[in-house]
């Protein structure tokens, strides 16, 4: 390899190339992980003892038409590897097979449920970002005061509240006692849906707000103690600009990493909140499909959630160096 250079900054091509290589590696491992996950999701059916037809037809009358339909959906008369190939090539073109419960294409059923779940995840994502960042920034600015202590205490309280408990408490207070929000359903039309989703999103967001708030506070405090902040202050930069440009900008790295993990967690927890508030989303579809033994739908949703989960984490990994260029130097620098 090339001899070590005194200053890497003189050759801008190298770090970019290294960055691209790193990115390619991460994308490669994303594809590998999703591929193996799809194999696990598909072949998990083979873990169940007994023949596949009776497994897929649990709880349904095994009449000849049903048997013929299931055999056709899964191509059960073909060898397992060919079955997987047919399934995965279908998935890649958006064809997840047919639902046994709805007698519809799985993709249609899922698409119908997607808006509610997306609305839920986006709204609680916004709540988490706004409230979590605000709480963390306030606490770090007021470090050591009673307000800081109060924020820390309420964060530790919030962090211990699971989403189903949050849902129960919010329904009791805001839907039953105060009657401000509906406790059931997702409404009709766009604005009505947003109104119906306020309580569920908050229930979903509560414990995550606490996590983001804590991470923000400690990341901000760490940056406040850095020299460059001191320098900026002594140069006469206004306090607001110091906080935004010198502290928050640098603190974003750890906040982003945690947020990525959280958004992935939101996808799974949304099932709980959807159930509590009677929302027709992807999560409640998953639960009802497990309940009604509709395995093709279960498979599809599990694969979608796992893919989204891994994709978000990969994205956060890739975005890290873009937001915080110090990370781009990679392992070589430290």
């Amino acid at each position, binding site marked *: 390899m090339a001899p070590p250079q005194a200053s890497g900054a003189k050759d801008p091509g190298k770090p970019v190339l290294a960055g691209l290589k790193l990115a390619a590696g991460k994308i490669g*491992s994303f594809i590998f*992980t*999703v591929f*193996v*996950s799809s194999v*696990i*999701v598909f072949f*998990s*059916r083979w*873990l*169940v003892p007994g023949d596949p037809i009776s497994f897929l037809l649990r709880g349904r009358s095994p009449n000849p038409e049903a048997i013929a339909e299931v055999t056709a959906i899964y191509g059960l008369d073909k060898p397992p590897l060919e079955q997987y190939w047919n399934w995965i090539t279908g998935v890649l073109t958006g064809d997840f097979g047919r639902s046994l419960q709805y007698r519809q294409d799985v993709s249609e059923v899922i698409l119908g449920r997607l808006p509610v779940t997306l609305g839920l995840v986006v709204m609680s994502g916004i709540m988490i970002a706004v409230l979590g960042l605000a709480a963390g920034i306030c606490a770090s600015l007021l470090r050591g005061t009673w307000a800081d202590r109060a924020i820390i205490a309420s964060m530790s309280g919030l962090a*211990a*509240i*699971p*989403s*189903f*408990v949050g849902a*129960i*408490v919010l*329904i*009791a207070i805001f*839907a*039953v006692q105060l009657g401000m929000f509906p*406790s059931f359903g997702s409404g009709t039309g766009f604005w009505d849906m947003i109104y119906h989703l306020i309580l569920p999103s908050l229930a979903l967001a509560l414990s995550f707000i606490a996590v983001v708030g804590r991470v923000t506070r400690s990341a901000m405090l760490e940056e406040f103690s850095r020299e460059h902040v001191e320098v900026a202050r002594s140069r006469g930069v206004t306090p607001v600009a110091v906080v935004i440009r010198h502290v928050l900008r640098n603190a974003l790295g750890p906040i982003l990493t945690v947020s990525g993990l959280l958004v*992935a*967690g939101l*996808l*799974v*927890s949304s*099932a*709980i909140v959807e*159930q*509590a508030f009677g929302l027709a989303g992807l999560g409640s579809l*998953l*639960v009802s*499909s*497990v*309940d009604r*033994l509709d*395995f093709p739908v*279960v498979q599809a949703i*599990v694969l979608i*959630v*796992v893919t989204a*989960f*891994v994709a978000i984490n990969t994205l956060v990994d890739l975005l890290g160096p873009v937001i915080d260029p110090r990370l781009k130097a990679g392992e070589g620098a430290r």
Partner: protein
Amino acid sequence: MSIQAAPRLPLKRQSLHKTRWGLVISIGFLALVLIAAIFAPLVAPFSPAAVDLLRVNSGPTPQHWLGTDALGRDILSRMVYGSRTALTGPIVVVLASTILGLLSGLWAGWAGGKIDAIISRIFDIVLAFPALLLAILAVALFGKGLIAPVIAMSIAYTPYIGRLTRQLVATEKNRQYVAAYKVQGFSAPWIATRAVMPNVLGVVGSQTTQNFGYVLVELAALSFLGLGIQAPKADWGNMINEGQAALVSGNFLPALIPSIAVVLVVVAVNSVGGWLSDKLGDPFA
């Protein structure tokens, strides 16, 4: 000397007691729940399944301290019996995942090279499945109840312990005492299990405690979704689910009491975990 030393001792003791107050309450509360779970038939005033349709959704009364649910069943008795499944699930998951994680992590960290790469890849893939999702998939395959989700969660939590153990063992391996054992002719498996393992257990223990809280919440969530412990049997999660109907008619207790119990147990366990990691020190902090 002795005159100066005398007044300092009680002071120190006092401050120790003050800082550990929350811990004492936590341990006391957990002991209480554990005793209630073990001696449920002796502790519970009623049978958890005893239906009393004349006293439906009653508030707290001298007979029913925490009131009754929509079928007139005593909530306190159901809470006591529900604590059995609420605790057994997480205990089994935490034990199984810790043992599996310790062994696989030890193997990966000690062997290094290809074995390390393969085990770490397996961890990555398992981590792609959120624990609750893997548990739901297991229920879809093997049916509702506690067994399938507990096995699934044990697998899902193994990489958390495994990665930590691997990291600890990999650094521990290069310490001088390991070299000293090698020079003395001890075999590698002996050094790994007898000499290195004890040094790793402390930190892993605090992670295990933390996992207990997560698992408890996730298993309760699963039962809240109606996929875990099934209806006539009392479990905190399905009690919240059943209590939700009463909630809308203004009777909060049936849903609120199991909710509070879940939160309190998690807070208590986390406080014990926090104390453990303070005491043992976090090498990565």
